[in-house]
């Protein structure tokens, strides 16, 4: 059960030719897959393409109608390997994952796939998780395309271009017997726009039909001597075929300059950056809102392979060309320099010298880069009002130009740029220049707000327990993993030393397989565990008799990627086999010391870790900490509760409360929790200035506050309020008695106070 349901949206997948669809990029891609007669789809979830998997999952019915097989692959490697179905058979297959991390995992299968080549179109949709909102290391998928000789599409980020690119992606793949990667940047995946639908196409050959009529061709198998043939094919047959297809179908676009434009200059860009570049030109007064620009553009919707003669043609006769290529290394710029050199074209080539060497190319850095380019090559093109503010720009540009490369590695600092823009803005007469508050003051006023555990997250208590145990035993080396639990590295927990990849938390700690005063803690989530952690982390630890502590966070879903189901999911799921306990799996690979704990039972979790730290038993100490992801649980339980209340059934709601008179405002509780709903408020006592702890109404009554108050011996301020709706007869009877007695005694107390009333 995914975090977000697309059950309603998927109905648009049934829409036919000519209908205008208003959808998210991801949903558009799914529709385009069905329009291209895809026979099988799969992949592994992960932002920014998680929703693609969720959409496919919710579209099972529609997929079945079209005989399209959908597989929730265990990992990106599994997904890539699945494309083997397109090697012998003319089956169109598509898989999706988060890149570059997913592509790293998949690259073994991808390399083999690319070597033998494909008969049916093989499309890999990679969500390029780069720049703002990314959760991974900053790298480029481009390198994988180059190393395995696969083709890389980077279409303009509007739904029409994106959905079209799916269609001709398959064609390109088939025309050149090569797998094709379709790169979508984060915001392109989630861009909400519109495109015109085509009819869905039933695959001409279905997986079933292919399976029933096996074909084989040993020359496609990656084994000598074929491998040498494959390399030859790549260079002599597939590459030329691809380039030919790209040229004849005009996949890359030339944009002529508008009237009065300057065709002595040019810009070569990745298709995915088109919209941002146009906006930058627009702000500089060099293009209108419709993309008509004063400078000719060569838009690479296919960023690999390069179509040399197109590029050389574009550059020939121009004074200077700017290459707009996001990320590093600057593969494209390097290649173009070589092309021009070989073709003896004298056009000056700018790129990373004027644009940031690394980092996302948002509007501001592009605007500044293009401005430098124009300042250096044709300053008269810049409108008067743009010029003065950028004298500095001229200087830099010219120095850069004379050297023709950037003197220093530069990146884009959004803050600095922002201050500059604000400075200009505040120079407006509207603001009184004097008694202005300097904007640098914001640096103190705006604390960071990184992503963190949600309200009531069942993973939080585990780290509360570990932190409390640290007070006793000293600091642990904690090998973290990918998943929500990685938020443990942030305040208030500050737990975690490294993260080496999905399911590799245990593996990353394997060097510390020696005796020491304190054992290490190796974390993994259920997502990572089933992705590969069972073998790479647990299996390896058992085999090597690793003596450390292994924590497996079992919250019933692959929570970080959006709550997709996994093998150990607690509930019955249509089309999938769930309810396979992690405990059995680890025991299956020979783990002896295995404990299963309830995450919210902090005392027990703490005690279990203590035991795991101290036990003389050899081999990995595996602690499976279980509880359901609160986001999913709420979605599951809320409707049930609402219904029960309606039917007049007895319902007990729990939430926490802090006595603001008893709380002394030392916030020790917050330093063990960080729960968004355990916050602070002004001190009700006018004599006190420190804010007191306060539980807001988002509280889900998970119980951590109370458990911490006990296990860490915090303070007597915490109260769990049990709110009984539709109380039973018994409730009413007892309540009556209690009210009488308690009321009487309270009256006595009040009388004492009134004696000295003010």
């Amino acid at each position, binding site marked *: 059960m995914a975090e977000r349901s697309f059950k309603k949206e998927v109905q648009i997948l049934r829409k036919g030719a000519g209908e205008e669809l208003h959808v998210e990029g991801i949903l558009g891609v799914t529709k385009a897959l069905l329009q291209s007669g895809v026979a099988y789809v799969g992949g592994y979830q992960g932002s920014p393409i998680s929703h693609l998997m969720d959409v496919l999952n919710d579209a099972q019915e529609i997929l079945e109608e079209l005989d399209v097989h959908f597989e929730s692959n265990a990992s990106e490697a599994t997904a890539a390997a699945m494309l083997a179905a397109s090697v012998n058979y003319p089956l169109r297959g598509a898989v999706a994952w988060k890149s570059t991390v997913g592509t790293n995992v998949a690259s073994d299968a991808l390399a083999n796939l690319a070597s033998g080549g494909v008969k049916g179109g093989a499309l890999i949709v990679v969500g390029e998780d780069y720049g703002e909102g990314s959760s991974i290391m900053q790298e480029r998928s481009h390198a994988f395309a180059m190393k395995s000789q696969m083709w890389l599409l980077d279409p303009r980020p509007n739904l029409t271009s994106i959905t079209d690119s799916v269609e001709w992606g398959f064609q390109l793949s088939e025309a050149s017997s090569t797998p094709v990667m379709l790169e979508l940047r984060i915001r392109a995946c989630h861009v*909400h726009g519109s495109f015109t639908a085509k009819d869905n196409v039933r695959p001409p050959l279905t997986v079933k039909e292919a399976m029933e009529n096996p074909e084989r061709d040993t020359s496609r198998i990656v084994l000598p001597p074929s491998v040498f043939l494959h390399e030859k094919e790549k260079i002599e047959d597939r590459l030329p075929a691809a380039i030919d297809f790209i040229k004849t179908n005009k996949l890359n676009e030339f944009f002529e300059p508008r009237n009065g434009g300057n065709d002595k200059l040019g810009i070569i860009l990745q298709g995915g950056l088109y919209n941002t570049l146009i906006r930058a030109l627009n702000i500089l007064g060099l293009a209108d809102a419709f*993309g008509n620009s004063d400078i000719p553009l060569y838009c690479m919707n296919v960023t690999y392979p390069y179509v040399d003669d197109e590029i050389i043609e574009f550059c020939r006769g121009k004074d200077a060309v700017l290459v707009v290529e996001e990320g590093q290394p600057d593969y494209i710029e390097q290649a173009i320099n070589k092309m021009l050199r070989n073709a003896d074209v004298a056009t000056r080539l700018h790129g990373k010298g004027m644009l940031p060497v690394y980092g996302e190319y948002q509007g501001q850095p592009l605007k500044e880069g293009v401005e430098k380019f124009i300042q250096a090559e044709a300053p008269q093109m810049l409108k008067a009002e743009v010029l003065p503010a950028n004298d500095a720009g001229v200087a830099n540009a010219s120095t850069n130009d004379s050297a023709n490369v950037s003197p220093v590695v530069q990146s884009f600092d959004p803050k600095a740029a922002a201050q500059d823009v604000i400075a200009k803005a505040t120079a407006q007469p509207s603001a009184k220049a004097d008694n202005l508050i300097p904007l640098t003051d914001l640096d103190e006023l*705006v604390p960071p707000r990184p*992503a963190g555990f949600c309200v009531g997250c069942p993973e939080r208590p585990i780290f509360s327990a570990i932190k409390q145990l640290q007070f006793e035993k000293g600091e642990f080396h904690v090998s973290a993993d990918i998943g929500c639990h990685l938020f443990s590295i942030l305040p208030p927990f500050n737990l975690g030393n490294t993260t080496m990849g999905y399911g590799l938390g245990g593996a990353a700690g394997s060097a510390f397989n020696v005796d020491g005063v304190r054992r290490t803690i190796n974390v993994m989530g259920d997502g990572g565990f089933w992705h590969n952690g069972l073998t790479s982390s647990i299996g390896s630890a058992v085999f090597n008799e690793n003596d450390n502590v292994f924590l497996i966070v079992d919250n019933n879903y692959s929570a970080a990627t959006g709550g997709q189901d996994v093998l150990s999911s607690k509930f019955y799921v249509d089309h999938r086999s769930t309810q396979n306990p992690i405990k059995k799996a680890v025991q299956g690979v020979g783990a002896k010391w295995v404990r299963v704990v309830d995450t919210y039972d902090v005392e027990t979790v703490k005690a279990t870790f203590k035991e795991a730290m101290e036990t003389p038993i050899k081999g990995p100490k595996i602690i499976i900490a279980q509880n359901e992801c609160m986001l999913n649980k709420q979605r599951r339980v809320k409707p049930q509760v609402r219904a029960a209340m309606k039917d007049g059934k007895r319902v007990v709601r729990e939430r926490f409360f802090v006595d603001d008179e008893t709380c002394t405002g030392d916030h020790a509780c917050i330093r063990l929790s960080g729960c968004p709903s355990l916050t602070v408020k002004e001190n009700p006592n006018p004599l006190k200035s420190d804010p007191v702890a306060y539980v807001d109404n988002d509280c889900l009554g998970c119980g951590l506050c109370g458990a911490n108050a006990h296990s860490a011996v915090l303070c007597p301020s915490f109260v769990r309020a049990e709110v009984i709706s539709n109380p039973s007869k018994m409730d009413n009877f007892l309540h009556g008695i209690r009210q009488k007695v308690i009321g009487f005694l309270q009256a006595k107390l009040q009388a004492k106070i009134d004696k000295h009333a003010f």
Partner: protein
Amino acid sequence: MTEQTVKPITIAISAMGGQGGGVLSNWIRDLAETNGYVAQSTSVPGVAQRTGATIYYLELFSQAAMKEADQEPVLAMTPVPGDVDVLIAAELVEAGRALQRGFVSADRTTLIATTHRSYTVAERQEKGNGLVDGDKIVQIAEQQAKRLIAFDMNQVAIENGSVISSALFGALAASDALPFNKAQFEAAIEAGGVAVASSLAAFNAAYQKGREDKAWEQKQQSVSKEAFASLPAEVASESARELLQRVKDEIPEVCQGLVFEAVKQLVDYQDPEYAHEYLDRLKPLISEDSSEQEYLLSQEVARQLALWMAFQDTIRVAEQKIRADRFEKIRREVKANDAQMVYPVEFLHPRVEEICDSMPKALGQWALNNSFARSCISALFSHGRKLQSAKLSGFLQLYFLASMKSGRRKTLRYFHENNNIEAWLERVQKAASKDYQTAFEIAKCQNLIKGYSDTHARGYENFNAIMAEVDTWLASGQGSLADRVASLNKAALTGEDRKAFEAELAA
């Protein structure tokens, strides 16, 4: 230039993950698409967003302009500093973040910001007061924005049983920043079809507030020292009357409000005699203090002494938990209706120390030092207790504990605290004759003694460490120790462990 004439309307939403920014952008998109505009929106979902800061971005483009040009517009994916028409902030610090990133420019940006705070971990985890000055952010917002609409939109949403997105949408409608009328906004909510009634209620309330000519509402300043009520003319009881009279006679005007508040709290804590004792303790200080100094020292001591004398022992905690108004407070806080029953479960974990503290001095000391007794007690209290304070057994236990109040002066805890108070007062007094500022800083140090069990013990440790330096200074020190004490006090409140403090101590 022509480019600037035909342009998309650019809207950025600066919010926290899970705040419903997606709902808001859907509404805006539907609003535009049904009223002659094409709309594009982008966002960054996924784990990168869980409760963290995030930006939703929309661009709207007139279909009329498209027809005229007979071309499709090229819409950007991310906001560009200086190129944002409307900035909507779903939390005050996120408004600050947007300002910091240059998304608010005086020449064109309408800023719609809620003034409510959702405190970051960085602010909440401080031992003292780590909250940033929200009002200053609003001031900067007012200075940077072309137009600012700012008020507590979260409150408006809550009052109307809705979520902040509806209130933000209402404020947006009120700003007239978009070429759509109120009815068209409401239609978008209805089209959405989710919780329409409550959303519309919040929308309209926010719309009204947004229409008020007042540019923005100053958030209610936190209760400050000046905020004490002036003395009442008459009081209810004889014992209260005496105390009021003493405050009038003995306490300088500037301190009267504060001291009277303290007196009330101490009577509530113990009894009138205790309040008299408090006034007796203040007397000598005040006589040496002066109006040239604006009685700053007296005020600080008056405040800290009152807080210290009302130390939170088990008796006090029990008393606080069984009062009628407290049960009412809980009902209000959990939003229970009259048909619902509310049963509080108290999480208590007294340690041996707290148990012995509430015994008569001699017995308590014996129990603490007698290993057998000690182990018996710790066995009894090794685990935390969940006490049902609104059920008989729980209530009676607390009631019994609270009724030990009359014997508080005999308890071991009282003995300790009282000695420390006396010693501290003596230091302040001595210091006052030596250096006023130092005396002031010493007085302040009481704020280090708070919390319970370990937290409380660590607080005392730090306090004593500082007092040790104070004593040597009192004995033989030259000049002023004020800065030193102040920086030690600050260090004691920084960070979780004592690292910062020990570093400062060694400095």
